[in-house]
């Protein structure tokens, strides 16, 4: 999964718990069926938080999660698909 396959990107860099999950929920609600939301976060806790959120949310499928480094900062990327 990469940035190119995502339909929309949510940038929550510089925001800590619980904001990444809350903003993910907000952006997810606005998606059309089949869309993939990319969430870019600097919060390491978002790895388990967004996974847990997707598991408990009907219609949300966690496609991928990856850790990268951008400008020397750890960045966590999540890809969530809205079910058809």
């Amino acid at each position, binding site marked *: 999964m990469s940035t190119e396959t995502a339909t929309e990107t949510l940038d929550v860099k*510089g*925001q*800590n*718990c*619980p*904001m990444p*999950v*809350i903003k*993910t*929920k*907000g952006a997810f609600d606005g998606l059309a069926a089949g869309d993939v939301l990319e969430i870019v976060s*600097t*919060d390491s806790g978002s790895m388990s938080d967004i996974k847990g*959120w997707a598991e*408990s*949310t*009907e219609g949300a499928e966690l496609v991928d999660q990856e850790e990268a480094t951008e400008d020397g900062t750890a960045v966590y990327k999540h890809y969530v698909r809205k079910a058809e």
Partner: protein
Amino acid sequence: MSADTPPSSDGELSPDDVADLRAQIEALESEVSDLRSEVDEGSADKMVIIATKGTLDMAYPPLILASTAAAFGYDVTVFHTFWGLEILHEENSKDLGLSSVGNPNMPVPNAIAALPGMDRMTARMMRNRIEDNDVASVEELIETSLASGVDLQACQMTIDLLGYDEDDFYDGVTTGVGAASAFQDMADADIQLLV
């Protein structure tokens, strides 16, 4: 065959008995299906938090849990009472206090922590840390919670007790509620927390 409907003496069911049982089964089936649809349509999962503390550190747990639960699709009510009201008080919420006195986790001995001005300093240090760690402010969490549909309630009895006015609270805060409505919400909720 249940014990209170003994079979006829020869152990056979008469056609009337069978018709009777059929009718009973049909009645039960329709009752079950009614109950099932009631449960299915039934309200979403629900959480109620009673927030009783108004220090800077204690403002966070209820607001973080409330907004997170809303993101999980829960109906959330936070009932603020006593010092928990400070969190919803638009002016006071921006300046919530924190004391080192009696808190053994703070790196200041009680004798020093008790000096005038120390509480303000402790609160300021904590506020700076919150900002440095990209943690949302109390105000942001309140706005986020309200925007996520969380029902933030201010206990009417404590509003009167502490001499506040309903207009002192953030727009969107529910006033005019008491213990009975909080209890009712708690009875219906899947999760109830006292903070």
